[in-house]
């Protein structure tokens, strides 16, 4: 099944009547996922957006409820949304975040005890339309993490560019329903699997950034080792790697007084890299130094997530290495750690 | 595209004054003359943290006037001199960030000119009018 490229864009434009559409748009020197006001501003040429797509389902700041003396007003329900133009790494990131936010059975035999209702509500109302990558960036490494540039993991519909059309790979009932509702825009023909293979091979052949994931799950042996000081040398605890990671999910809840008898509760992103992340009320900080915080992040993604959910909490998007102001590269870190095991 | 219109401004003016420059009958007269202006007392203008003023400006206050002792006569020796430089630096940072620096001003009390604060408040009101600020 396929659809002409211009028809896809006009279908998205039509959908703005019933859905809120988020798509990559240029804003100055970067491209970000923003609400679409004008279909012509969608930018599908830029390979990787600065902020990952998780922001549409897990916003930076989100109001939970307002309290007015003895009345509680929950935040308004979110509207149905479409995420258009998501790359496979970001779509996979949202899939990995489901492990954490939804109450499902876990690999270690337990069950995730609490389901985040704010995540679930948005997730159920969001349709993810991913688009395959025809060329990589210097730090792209999705193929090291079990997906590839034309992977349908995490998306409802995947668009694979082929000439002047997109071939479609539909993975979920939600995706099927969307196509059924707009049957007239789509046409039969072409081999989606073959198109996927072709785009995957062409893109993978250009990748140079390699992440060694073969030792994932074994890094606990290095817990007391001084090697963490070596790999985190130069880290300034800014938190950019975690804010821009498609699978990072730490957040903070705050109560803010807004009047004599009223307050707001909201949640916002937090980062395990911040110096005060684990600061306790007594003044003790179990992770006072950069090496301890960096170790926590690597173990969280390449050790603890595996034990609990059986997956590595990384999609190989490369943002952490590309955006780090100190030039710390995840590829180098994993290589050094692997060498020490 | 976000713009300065996302930070609406009200016609409110606030005067941060030190307790030595404006006190007693003088303060009452000013309050009677300008009932809609807020007067905040500080121990010395040197105590003012310009972050407080800036935060007020972006959250809707129209203009802020800082009123201190005469140049060579600070009640606390030299607090007003530091305040003067500090307000100037704050105006430059505000301008670099897109907030109109003329909404923040520093006025020195003048023992030979009792009307200096009144004139500044009236000038700020005219400025807010010319900027088209409603209630």
């Amino acid at each position, binding site marked *: 099944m396929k659809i002409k490229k211009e028809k896809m864009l006009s279908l998205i434009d039509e959908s703005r009547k019933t859905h809120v559409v988020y798509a990559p748009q240029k804003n100055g020197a970067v491209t970000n996922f923003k609400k679409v006001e004008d279909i012509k501003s969608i930018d599908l040429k830029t390979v990787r957006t600065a902020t990952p797509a998780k922001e549409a389902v897990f916003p930076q700041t989100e109001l939970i409820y307002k309290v007015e003396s003895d009345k509680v007003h929950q935040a308004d329900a979110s509207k149905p949304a479409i995420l258009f133009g998501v790359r496979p790494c970001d779509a996979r990131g949202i899939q990995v975040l489901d492990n954490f936010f939804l109450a499902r059975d876990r690999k270690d035999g337990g069950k995730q005890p609490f389901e985040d209702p704010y995540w679930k509500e948005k997730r159920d109302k969001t349709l993810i339309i991913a688009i395959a990558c025809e060329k990589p960036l210097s730090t792209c490494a999705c193929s090291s993490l079990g997906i590839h540039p034309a992977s349908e993991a995490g998306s409802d519909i995947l668009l694979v560019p082929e000439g002047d059309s997109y071939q479609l790979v539909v993975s979920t009932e939600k995706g099927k329903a969307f196509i059924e509702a707009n049957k007239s825009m789509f046409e039969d023909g072409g081999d989606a699997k073959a198109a996927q293979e072709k785009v995957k091979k062409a893109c993978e052949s250009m990748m140079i950034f390699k992440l060694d994931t073969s030792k994932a799950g074994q890094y606990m042996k290095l817990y007391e080792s001084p090697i963490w000081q070596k790999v985190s040398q130069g880290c*300034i605890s800014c938190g*950019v790697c975690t804010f821009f990671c498609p699978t990072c999910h730490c957040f903070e809840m705050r109560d803010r007084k807004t009047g004599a008898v009223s307050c707001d509760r909201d949640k916002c992103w937090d980062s395990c890299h911040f110096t005060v992340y684990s600061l306790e009320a007594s003044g003790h900080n179990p992770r006072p130094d950069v090496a301890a915080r960096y170790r926590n992040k690597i173990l969280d993604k390449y050790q603890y997530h595996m034990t609990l959910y059986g997956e590595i909490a990384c999609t190989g998007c490369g943002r952490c290495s590309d955006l780090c*102001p100190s030039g*710390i590269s995840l590829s180098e870190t994993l290589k050094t750690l692997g060498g020490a095991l | 595209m*976000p713009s300065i219109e996302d930070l609406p401004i009200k016609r409110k003016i606030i005067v941060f004054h030190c307790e030595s420059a404006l006190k007693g009958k003088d303060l009452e007269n000013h309050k009677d003359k300008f009932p809609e202006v807020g007067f905040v007392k500080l121990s010395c203008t040197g105590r003012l943290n310009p972050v407080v003023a800036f935060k007020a400006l972006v959250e809707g206050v129209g203009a802020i006037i800082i009123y201190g002792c005469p140049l060579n006569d600070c009640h606390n020796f030299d607090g007003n*001199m530091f305040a003067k430089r500090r307000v100037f630096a704050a105006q430059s940072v505000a301008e*670099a*960030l897109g907030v109109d620096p003329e909404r923040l001003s520093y006025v020195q009390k003048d023992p030979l000119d009792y009307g200096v604060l009144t004139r500044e408040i009236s000038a700020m009101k005219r400025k807010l009018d010319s900027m088209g600020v409603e209630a």
Partner: protein
Amino acid sequence: MMTEKTLAYFRKIVKEAIKSGKIAGFLGWREVADMPGKTRAFVATTPEEVDLLVFNSFSRENLSRLLGGKTFYIPELKKGQKFGVMVKGCDSRNLLANVAENKVDRDNLWVIGVKCPGTIDIDLVRSGLDSDIKNITDDGTTLHVEMLDGKKADLVKSDYYDPRCLRCPYTSALEVDELLPDDMPKKPTKNWEKWMESYLQKPFEERRAYIISQLSRCTMCFACRDACPGCYCNTNCIMDYPKLPEPYLQKGTSLASILTYHFIHYFHLSDRCTNCGECARACPESIPLNLITEQLGYMTKTTWDFEPGTSDKAKTPLALYKVEEVLGR
């Protein structure tokens, strides 16, 4: 960038210093194996590790930020031993500024300075290419780029300098213990004060519309704060403690919060910022923060005739006043 001769000389003196026990370690830059056009901070503690130290047009990290109190692993110094560090012009100013504020003890440091011919903005190079970079080398006048799709390109180096480097008046490092010889092609230079004057002549409405549209992208990640050598409050920063009874400062991303945070950051730096540009380089959303820092530098120079970081003893303008000001002249 350095010639082979200067690089060899530099590595020789550092190796000798380590072998003789004069320094416990040397902080410099080394290349990152799989990320072209980037370097990272590295402490060499053995003569073998010194061979990894480089200096080239991609060495942009301001190493003095790592000495100002952030938890950075400096090896234990024995009695009389020092710690070595390498600085460019802009970095040396931050080092002096931190020494003047008693944050860094200059007597513990052995400082080697380089005459920096300017650094390349790798994002500028990438934005002009069809495919991302696989490998990039610099011979002084030309950048030889090999791209991921196999194509090659030769770019004129002077088109890709960071625009601020072209305006920098401090090409040589200040007050260092050893200054390496200068033997690389010079970069073109522009006068930063003239540039700032012409920028300030643009109407305020135009400048304001631009900076606000750019600042609205801010995600409050605080990379600019952590990358800044002058921001050394570390665990005591007010932005980390919005848990006052009525939280005064919000970490949210409303425009008011964003402007308040940037005001606090740049106000605390208004007379101490050396315009090293690390904040603009660290920003993951590529917000042009250099427009703010350069304006502050211009304000400090024209009003108080002071350039931060040029002396390790001078007090900054906001900590002083002149007698003429008191008397109203």
